């Protein structure tokens, strides 16, 4: 049977019962829009979680001395030549940074706190949250800057402010305690409040001097796209033979698991919503087919083969689904354009920080997700139409025409 005829009959039937099909199309449109927008929110949450982890001095890939994660001291550092360059194409790598990171105690005139003291080259920290963090006062001027910047949360705990001095105590390369007094150059405000209390930054060379070493404790690399992660790891394994080269998933397994779980959640939400819709769709299609059973009987009496009648019902259902999916995608695009810049969730800042999420929540619409929703909706529509279609041809032609 010519597809043109099937399409012609289906298209005209679509406009025949305007109110019923209008309600059905609205249901499909709202469901598809809902799934797409929910996907974008979940995907945004997923990306936010992942970016927070990567921004949080982790990077996509990190080079560490074996055992550093269990005992993060300068004794488990390694040397990187000052003029060393990561020999990878700029198309793959966004940047890299070598850091010295040791546990330390920071003291103000009034309070004492345990922190992570991180020696950085500020020019290289465009790959971490430090690159775009808001700073009150000044940032570090270079790897040799002897001042520190502290988080707003920590400054509040220490009851100190910009320009005041802090005393840092940590263990040197020789195992003996080292102490240094540093002036606060600036106070940073991170999007995730927990970071403000965890990290104090100073120049990398300054911290090496204090620890009496030329070693660093980590080299962090940020790639431009996830798909480059493996090849970057392979290169780093060659360059840093004998050291651990670890992906962010290995370094932050809990976050990686949550990111992976949210992938599954997206599909589960999709199946639940579309599954509910399919029941409605089957019900409506059965009604629609039964209403037209005489007409379908007539088509068969005139010589249309049973499989063509099935095809006609399936094409009609797919057409309804297609129009509904297009309407849903248009609704989703409209709503998404309103929230694309982000949703302000500062009121839930503390709760979000627990999950490593930022208060400005930005939804992410991925082409793959949209295609998947559209394709699966059409597939479910086709699947849902088989039952009513088979019911239509199961009836004897005469019985159908007598209805």
């Amino acid at each position, binding site marked *: 049977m010519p597809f043109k005829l099937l399409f012609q*009959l289906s298209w005209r039937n679509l406009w025949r019962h305007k109110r019923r099909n209008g309600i059905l199309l609205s249901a499909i449109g709202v469901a598809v829009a809902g799934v797409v927008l929910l996907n974008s929110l979940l995907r945004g949450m997923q990306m936010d979680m992942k970016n927070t982890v990567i921004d949080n001095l982790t990077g996509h890939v990190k080079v560490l001395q074996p055992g550093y994660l269990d005992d993060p001291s300068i004794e488990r550092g390694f040397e990187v030549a000052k003029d060393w360059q990561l020999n990878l194409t700029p198309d793959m790598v966004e940047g890299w940074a070598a850091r010295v990171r040791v546990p330390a105690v920071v003291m103000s005139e009034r309070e004492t706190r345990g922190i992570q003291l991180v020696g950085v080259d500020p020019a290289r920290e465009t790959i971490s949250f430090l690159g775009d963090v808001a700073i009150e006062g000044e940032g570090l001027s270079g790897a040799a800057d002897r001042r520190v910047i502290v988080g707003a949360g920590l400054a509040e705990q220490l009851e100190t402010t910009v320009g005041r001095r802090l005393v840092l105590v940590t263990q040197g390369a020789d195992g003996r305690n080292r102490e240094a007094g540093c002036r606060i150059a600036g106070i940073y405000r991170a999007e995730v409040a927990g970071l403000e209390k965890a990290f104090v930054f100073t120049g990398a060379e300054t911290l090496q001097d204090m620890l009496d070493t030329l070693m660093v404790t980590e080299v962090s690399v940020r790639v431009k796209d996830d798909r480059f992660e493996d090849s970057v790891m392979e290169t780093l394994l060659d360059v840093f033979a004998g050291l651990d080269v670890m992906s962010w998933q290995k370094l932050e397994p809990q976050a990686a698991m949550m990111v992976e779980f949210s992938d599954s959640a997206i599909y589960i939400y999709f199946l639940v919503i579309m599954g509910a819709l399919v029941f409605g769709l089957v019900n409506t299609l059965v009604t629609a087919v039964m209403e037209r059973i005489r*007409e379908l009987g007539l088509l068969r*009496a005139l010589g249309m*083969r049973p499989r063509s009648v099935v095809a006609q019902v399936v094409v009609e259902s797919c057409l309804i689904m297609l129009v509904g999916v297009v309407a849903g995608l248009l609704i989703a695009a409209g709503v998404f354009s309103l929230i694309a810049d982000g949703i302000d969730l500062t009121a839930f800042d503390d709760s979000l920080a627990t999950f490593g999420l930022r208060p400005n929540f930005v939804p992410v619409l991925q082409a793959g997700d949209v295609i998947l929703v559209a394709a699966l909706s059409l597939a479910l529509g086709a699947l849902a139409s088989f039952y009513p279609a088979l019911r239509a041809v199961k009836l004897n*032609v*005469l019985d159908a025409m007598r209805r």
Partner: protein
Amino acid sequence: MADRVVECAGVGRTYDDDTVPVHALRDVDFALEAGEWVSLAGPSGSGKSTLLHVIGGLDQPNAGTVVVDGVDVIQLSEAQLSDLRLRRIGFVFQSYNLIPVLSALENVEFIMQLQGVAGAERRQRALETLDSLGLAELADRRPGEMSGGQQQRVAIARAIVTNPVLLLADEPSANLDTATTQELLDLLQKLNRERGVTILTATHDPMVMSYATRQVNLRDGSIVPGVES
């Protein structure tokens, strides 16, 4: 002697839907020659529509043989029966004859579309057929915009456009007034006489019977012997 278009021998049809079996046809022997217009007559429940449906491949007999244009209908699968109806038989039903979403022209084209006739040829033949039956002005109207009589006439146009060997009409005048019935029967007569279309009607309308070249009477599922006219 003309070619035999239909030959039924010992045809029986029993429905087991209820607790008591209903014998709609009992041992029916019937033949239809090319160019004839035979009217199956009889009261309601006599089996005339059942015989028409069995010959048209819309119903399967429990006994006997039915040969249409040399093809043993009983041996055919559902798909082969569809093909038989599509290529050799034209149907006019009592009501609900046309596809509601198609115009009169498209309804007439429909069978040819199923047969795979090319678009231009299809349209030309459909227009010619509508024109020859005086229905050209209805070409763009959908069934909902036509009277019952107009719909029946368009159904006849659709039934004959592919030159089938047999035109089956089941109670074609059932929902029509006398004047419209007469117009319809004049049209069928014209087709039968001028084009040699073989027609089999099932009816209890005396006006339809009067137009037929031969009448076969049925009662309780059997042909009443000696009452053929």
